[in-house]
Every structure is written in C-alpha cells, then in structure tokens.
C-alpha cells in the first residue's frame, strides 16, 4: 500500500511537472569499450535455439540517432550500440575500437591512429577517409550539428574555427595518410583526447548512407541505416520503440552475445518501473523518484553511479547585493549539504567544490579528494562561523540585509532544494529569501540575461578533465551566469589548456582555489546516475559520462 501511495504521489508530482519535461541537461556521453579478452564469457551459455534478447527502455524517443547530429543522452545510448569510434571507453578505461593502436608524438601535438580492417554493416570497408568525412561533417555549419562546439575542446588544428564558421574545412588538421592511418594535428597537447574521441559525435558515418535521407533521417530508417557498431537498426517505430539486431559485420562480432535488443520509449518512470517488476523490461534508466531510497537500501538490481557534474546556485555578481565576499561565504557555510542530499536520497554527493569525484589528476589522485572543502562544510558544522562572517559584513543576525529571491525552473526536485535552502538561510543566518519558479525555457532566458538574484544552475561535463567544468566560469563563457570575471582565473584556465601533466593540473587546482575563494556560486551537490538492471542481464557496462554499453551483454536464465 505504501508503495502504491508513493506511486500515486509520483504521478501527482508528474502532472505538476509537465512544464519541466525538457529540463534535462544534455548529458554528453562517451561510448564504452569492449576488448575481446575482457568480455565476460557467460558460464552457462544458453542453447543455440534460445535467442538472446534484451528488453530495454531507452527513455524518451530520441531526437536523432545520427551520431554526428546527436546531442542528447537517450540518442547517445542507442548510438553507442550501433556505432563505434576509434576508441571505446568503459568504466573510465579507454579500449581500442576501430583504431587498433595509436602513437602520440613527443610534443603531444600529433596523434596517429592505426585503424583495423573492418566493415560497415553493408559489407563495404570502413577506412580512415570515412572518419575524415564524418568529422568534417560534424564541424560543418551547413550540417548544423548542435554539438559541433565540442571541437573547440578537441584542440584539433582549425576545427573550432571551422565549426564556428570562421575557418575552412580544408585547413582542419585531420588527414587520412592511407586507408588505415589517420593523423590528427593538435594545437595543444590534449591527454584526454583518446577518451573524448570515443564520444558519439566522433563516430564514423558512411557518406552514401548520410546522403540518402537528409538531416539524420537515414539513421532511423532501417532500409538506409548503415553503421559499424555491435548492432544494427532493424526497425524504428516513432514514439514507440526500436529494434537492434546483432551486426555480423562488426569486427568483434564473435564476442557479441546478444541476438537482439527490443527497445521501447517510455518516459513515464512509474510505468517503466511497473513493466520492469512484471518482467516486461530488463534494463531501465529511470525509476520513480520516491522509490529511489528504498531501492538503494534493498534492491541489489539497482545501481547508482556518480555523474561528472555539479548542481549549484549562482550569485548574480552584477548586483550590489552580493558585492561582499563575506556574505557569499556566509551563505556557502550556512547550508547543510548533507541534509539536502539525504532528503533527495538518490546517491548525490554533497559538494564543497565545483569539480565532482571521478576525475583523476596526473598523480592518479582524485581531483575532488585532493581539492578538499575549501573551509566550507558539507554538513552544518560551520554555521557559527557563517554567522560571525555575516556580522562582520555588517549584518548581524541578518539584520539589515535586503530580502532576495531564489529562482529555479518549475520542478518538484528543484523546489525541494530551494525550500530547504530558504529555511536554512532563515534559521541559520536570519536572511529572508522568497522563492520563484519559471517554466524551463523562460528560466533559461532569465538566467542568461541576468534577471535574477540567486538562481539554480547545473553542469555536466563532456570529457574527463576538470577543465570541462572549471572553464564555465571564465570571462564571457555562455554559461557563466554569475558573470564572474577574474583575470588570474582566466589565465590559469588558458594555461591549463596549453600544458600537460602536473603543470596542467596545478593550474586547475589553483583555478578552483580562486573560484572557491571568490565564491560566485554555492555548490550544492554532485549529480548521480542510476539504473535498474535485472540480474539475468550480465556483462553490461557504462562510460564514465553515463552512456550504456550492451556490446558484452548476455542473458542468463
């Protein structure tokens, strides 16, 4: 009965959430890898006669499943099964994909990939020229790929200019030396490029297939879709689902156990959860929010992963209201982040910095661990200090500090966090905050033009380097909503982009020191990701950035 009530509650919440449907940040993903030797061999392989079928809920009907044009996590999850890039990343480890091996020049500015001889699903050979075509298509403004800005972070010579329409595609540093050798020239040494290139945007597409039906429509048409990954598309039903079948032409097909993936598009978490419980689905990416704490505690089939991102509040630094850093620090100290993550109860990690756990520095230490908490606390242990700071700033017990508004986009979860923070600021500091929510797209606009006092923000990175997060707060960055501007911070970020190893990470540590001293934001928690996977599904994996990988899956019954 309790569960039923919570199911009902979730539904009630859902209807109030309708306006916030599209609020999910694009979660970039990096494909996951597979290495022949690593594939877990199922001990009791079923008889040849039982086809191996995975019943999977993708979530929403993806906007596109053309790798180059995609910019969303649901599309990325499908694409990672149908395509494969030079590398595959699985649980943070980069494995060879279509590239058998690669050499990085001494100065780190040239990366040469040696491709294996492999085929497209139509049996034609896949060569280095296909990569050149696909990548240039990705940065070509005429193709209008939403994700083409990612080229800026690859540091590939001329790529960002081409993507932003300021340079020619002919000047891009990507060359097919022969059919199976691909040379990539970089502006700066970029250690994370190997994991970055496993991301869906960099997967190859076949020119003749792409040109068969415009704007990525070819990828959803089983008659036209040509791919190079473990599976091929055999049916696509708008709003309903899709079917993938094993690709016999995949170079590592011998280690692909599944015959078929039956995928559905159910974006209503409670329905998918019900279907999972009655065995109609085996792998679901969403569960009703109210069920999460119980699932974490009781269900061994429920998996929680950290996500490389941070949930935070922006101070609008254009306002005199926040001019005093002591006020910003007092607010940062007065918030009990553990209480918030406990209330949300979905495995989020309290944040006292901006860089989330899971990113390693040059010495192999976790950046998050090494960075520490900057004198903040994840619990309520600094409240007395916060009160003293606020008094020092001239507002003892909050007296004299003007009331302000906390702004967020309409959503039950955002509202819950805002209410907790409102209460903490009132109780701990005597500050009066009111709450205001706006429809998702309106809110994006409000925040961008700086028409707010304190507003929620969230950022998920696309590649495994802290600069993917810290660069948000460089002067003029499109997501720098606090309008933070610090010359030294900008210098350190640009230094980090030009350096490798300890120099690179020292610059990033120093940058986060500045960020956490100046505090243009209130970090609250680091995101988590979860999924519910039946125990008959073995050998599945995911990338650190959150894309699922079924290349090694088998069904054990």
């Amino acid at each position, binding site marked *: 009965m309790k569960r039923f009530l919570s199911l009902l509650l979730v*539904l*009630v919440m859902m*209807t109030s959430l309708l306006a916030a449907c*599209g609020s999910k940040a694009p979660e970039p993903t990096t494909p996951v890898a597979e290495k022949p030797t690593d594939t877990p061999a199922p001990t009791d392989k079923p008889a040849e006669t039982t086809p191996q079928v995975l019943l999977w809920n993708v979530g929403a009907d993806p906007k596109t499943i053309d790798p180059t044009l995609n910019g969303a996590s649901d599309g990325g999850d499908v694409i990672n099964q149908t395509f494969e890039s030079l590398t595959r990343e699985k649980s943070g480890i980069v494995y060879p994909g279509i590239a058998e091996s690669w050499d990085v020049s001494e100065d780190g500015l040239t990366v040469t990939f040696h491709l294996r001889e492999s085929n497209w699903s139509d049996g034609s050979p896949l060569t280095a020229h296909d990569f050149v075509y696909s990548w240039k298509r990705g940065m070509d403004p005429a193709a209008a790929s939403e994700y083409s800005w990612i080229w800026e972070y690859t540091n590939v010579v001329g790529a960002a200019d081409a993507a932003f329409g300021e340079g020619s595609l002919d000047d891009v540093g990507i060359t097919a030396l022969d059919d199976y050798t691909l040379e990539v020239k970089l502006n700066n040494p970029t250690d994370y490029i190997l994991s970055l290139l496993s991301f869906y945007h960099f997967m190859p597409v076949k020119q003749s297939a792409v040109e068969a039906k415009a704007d990525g429509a070819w*990828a959803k048409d089983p008659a036209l879709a040509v791919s190079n990954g473990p599976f091929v598309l055999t049916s696509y039903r708008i*709003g*309903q689902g899709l079917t993938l079948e094993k690709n016999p032409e995949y170079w590592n097909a011998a280690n692909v156990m599944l015959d078929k993936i039956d995928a559905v598009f*159910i974006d209503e978490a409670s329905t998918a959860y019900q279907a999972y419980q009655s065995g109609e689905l085996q792998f679901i990416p969403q569960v009703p929010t109210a069920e999460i704490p119980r699932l974490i505690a009781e269900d061994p089939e429920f998996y929680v992963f950290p996500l490389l991102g941070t949930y935070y509040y922006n101070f609008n630094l254009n306002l005199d209201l926040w001019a005093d850093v002591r006020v910003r620090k007092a607010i940062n100290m007065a918030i009990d982040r553990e209480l918030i993550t406990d209330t949300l109860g979905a495995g989020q990690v309290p944040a006292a910095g901006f860089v989330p756990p899971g990113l390693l520095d040059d010495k192999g230490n976790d950046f998050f661990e090494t960075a520490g908490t900057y004198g903040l606390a994840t619990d309520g242990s600094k409240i007395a200090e916060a009160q003293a700071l606020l008094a020092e700033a001239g507002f003892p017990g909050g007296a004299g500090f003007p009331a302000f508004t906390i702004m967020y986009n309409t959503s039950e979860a955002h509202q819950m966090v805002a209410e907790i923070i409102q209460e903490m600021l009132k109780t701990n500091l005597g500050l009066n905050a009111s709450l205001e929510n706006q429809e998702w*797209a309106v809110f*994006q606009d409000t925040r961008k033009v700086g028409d707010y006092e304190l507003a929620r923000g969230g950022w998920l990175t696309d590649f495994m380097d802290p600069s993917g997060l810290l660069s948000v707060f460089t002067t003029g960055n499109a997501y720098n909503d606090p309008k933070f501007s610090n010359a030294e911070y900008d210098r350190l970020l640009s230094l980090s982009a030009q350096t490798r190893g300890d120099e690179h990470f020292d610059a990033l540590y120093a940058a986060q020191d500045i960020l956490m001293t100046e505090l243009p934001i209130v970090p609250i928690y680091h995101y988590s990701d979860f999924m519910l996977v039946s125990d008959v599904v073995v050998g599945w994996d995911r990338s650190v950035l959150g894309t699922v990988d079924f290349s090694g899956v088998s069904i054990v019954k």
Partner: protein
Amino acid sequence: MGSYYLKRVISSIVTILLIATLTFTMMHSIPGGPFTRERPVPAEILRSLNEKYNLDAPLYVQYFDYMKGLVTFDLGPSYSKIGTSVNDLLVAGFPTSAKIGLMASVLIIILGIPVGIISALKQNKPIDYFVMFMATLGVTVPSFVVATLIIYFFAGKLGWIPSFGLTSPLGYIGPVIALTGYSLSFVARLTRSSMLEVLRQDYIRTARANGLKEFSVIGKHAVKNALIPVVTYIGPMIAAILTGSFVVEKIFAVPGMGRYYVESVTNRDYTTIMGMTVFYAAFYIVMVLFVDIAYGFIDPRIRLGKEK
C-alpha cells in the same frame, strides 16, 4: 442549402487561418526557442542552426513561409525530432490516438446515454443515486489517477494486462477506460438532467394524455429532444478524444499524438505546436459542423439552411 454549406466551409477556413496566426504570434512571443538548452549553444552554432531552419528570417517572412506550407498541407520539419516532419508525426501518432479515442467514444455513447436515461426515469430511486454517485466520481477523479490505479492493479497486482503499449489487444483496455472516465460520467449526467427537463414539458404530457404507450413517449418524443445538448457536447468531445490525451498516452506509453501538445510547447518546437493546433482546430470545426447537421435529424425545427 448548398450556399449555407459553402458559407460554413469558407468561415471554417478563415477560422483555421486565424487560429494559425494567433498561435504563431503567441508562441513566438514567449521566451526561448527550439535550440534553448540548459547548456547554451554557442552563438556561432546557434546562428548556423537558425540559418538551417530559416529561423533567422524576419518573423513575417517565417509567417508567410509557414502559411504557404500550411495551404499545401506541408506542416514543416519537427525541431525536436530532426529529419522527421510534423506530417510524419501525425501520420504515426494520429491513427493510434484515434483508434483508442474511437473505442472510448463508442463506449461513452452506448453507455453514457442509456445510463443517463435510466437514471432520469428512475429519478431519486437507488439506481439513480448510484449512477449519480459514480458519475460524480468519474468527473472528479482525474484520468492520471484512474490510469495509475489500472496499471497498479490490473498490470501489477493481477497481471491481466500489459504495463505499457498496445502490442496486445488487452493493452487497449487501460487507455480506453482512462480516456472514457470523465466524458462518460459527464454524458450520463447531461443526459439525465436533459431528460428530466424534457419529461416536464407539455408535449410529453400531451403525448401521454393521447394514450401513447410509455415506451413510445420516452423513445420517440422524450429521448430525441433530450439528446440535443448531449449531441452538442459529444461532437467536440470526439475531436478532443480522437486527437489523444497527454496524460493517458504518457502513462500507458501509447505512441499517439497526445503527448506532442505538451512536449512541443516545452521544447518550443514551433512547427509541431502549429501542426497540432491546426490539426485539432480543423477536426474540431468539422465535428461542430456534424453536430449542426445532426440537430436537423433530431429536431426538424432546426434543419439547417431550410428556407422559412
């Protein structure tokens, strides 16, 4: 008669064009656009996206381009499903929504009207109280609660129907019931009150005084007249039900068109918003026309376009 219909058709087209214009103006006046993202798309990329989809043209140019497409039934590309046109979305979604909607409409008519009549004839008897209690429940309990209850008990606890989709015939049960609830109750209540009203009329008394059989009084004279307000409601109701319901389709994971009404607004998917609005408006207008025609059959006094 013919000139009446011609007038109706012309005024319908004008209405649709007005609705399209109004929708176009309203949706372009709210903040955000089809490429609004939590993570903002860089200005240069946004420019090439807008250029590709002709969103960089002045608004009046976009308006005339859209209207040009509309008169040739080309509803344009969907921004939230690139490579798919709004026509494709309708072709894929409408038959599914319509199938469920048709079943629900039939159920509403064949259950709602008789129940309302019986209730009126047995006014203030236990059966009337029971029907009115159920009808009040049906009108007040929202469809998402009904849908959740159905999934919880019949799919979850009992396992009689699938939890989602329409792959088996049993899959239709949940969506149809959830879709029926409100309108069925409303039709029953409307029929009952309309019946009660008619039964008090002089001509019913006259019919009875003339010694007509009770069956004939009710069936021939009362019901027919009582149906006028019911038909007025049912016409537009069919347009609404056949074009899908966001809540029912979302909860039962039905691949219909109902979800696009809400999703397209959130996504600022301009072409889909327009397509859905215009499609629904056209359907609605046609149904209203049918209702007007039906009046003539029910009550010859209001036969359309008849010269006095």
